[in-house]
């Protein structure tokens, strides 16, 4: 598990940004409440990407 900012976007437009724990919790709740889905932690993590701002911060200048 990591505290690095992560990002997840749902097909409906809903998005979540936060730590791994926060994104997994938000996506699990959103899936159940809005889409009648029960994604596992692994399934959510498979869709997560690095938060764009955090990824940009880690880029090294040319």
């Amino acid at each position, binding site marked *: 598990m990591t505290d690095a900012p992560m990002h*997840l976007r749902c097909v409906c437009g809903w998005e979540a940004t936060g730590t791994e724990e926060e994104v997994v919790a938000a996506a699990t709740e959103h899936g159940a*409440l809005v*889409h009648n*889905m029960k994604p596992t932690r692994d399934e959510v993590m498979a*869709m997560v990407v690095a938060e764009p701002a955090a990824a940009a911060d880690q880029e090294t200048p040319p």
Partner: protein
Amino acid sequence: MAGLRAGEILDVEGPVRAEIFMIWLKVDHLELTGPDGPVPWIVQIEDVEHPVEVVERIVTGLVGAPLLVHSTSWRRDAAAVILSFLVVIGPDQVGGMASQPIVRAELARSEATRAPARIGQEQVLEHAIRHLAWLAQDDEVVAARLTDGWRAELAGYVPEPFRSLA
């Protein structure tokens, strides 16, 4: 990996899905709203679940018990069958959800033996409200749930029964 599309976004899958249009009467006109704004949203239906029960449960969990839940059309979308649902809620249930006036649209008409080439969401909604207009005249239970304001708004829609859009 049921319910998820490999790649980048959380997706809704399954052979049967519900597409929910949540509408309400804002004083003198109809508006579309939803948990992600004025757009329909897709709900996954598991094998053992009844679509109407799932929609009623999901909506109730979000905004409280709806006034009406009714399936108004169906269509095929790739590997899935999409059941369109019209959900009527009261003004006090909209809360902070973004909402937008509903704009009239031309229906997506089938050919004699073929489905329409394209079916837009606005066309599905147009047909759904026409279906509600039909129910308001034909179904006592539905009629009893609608106010005079609703009946006045629905009078502008041509009544249509349930039908396949694809």
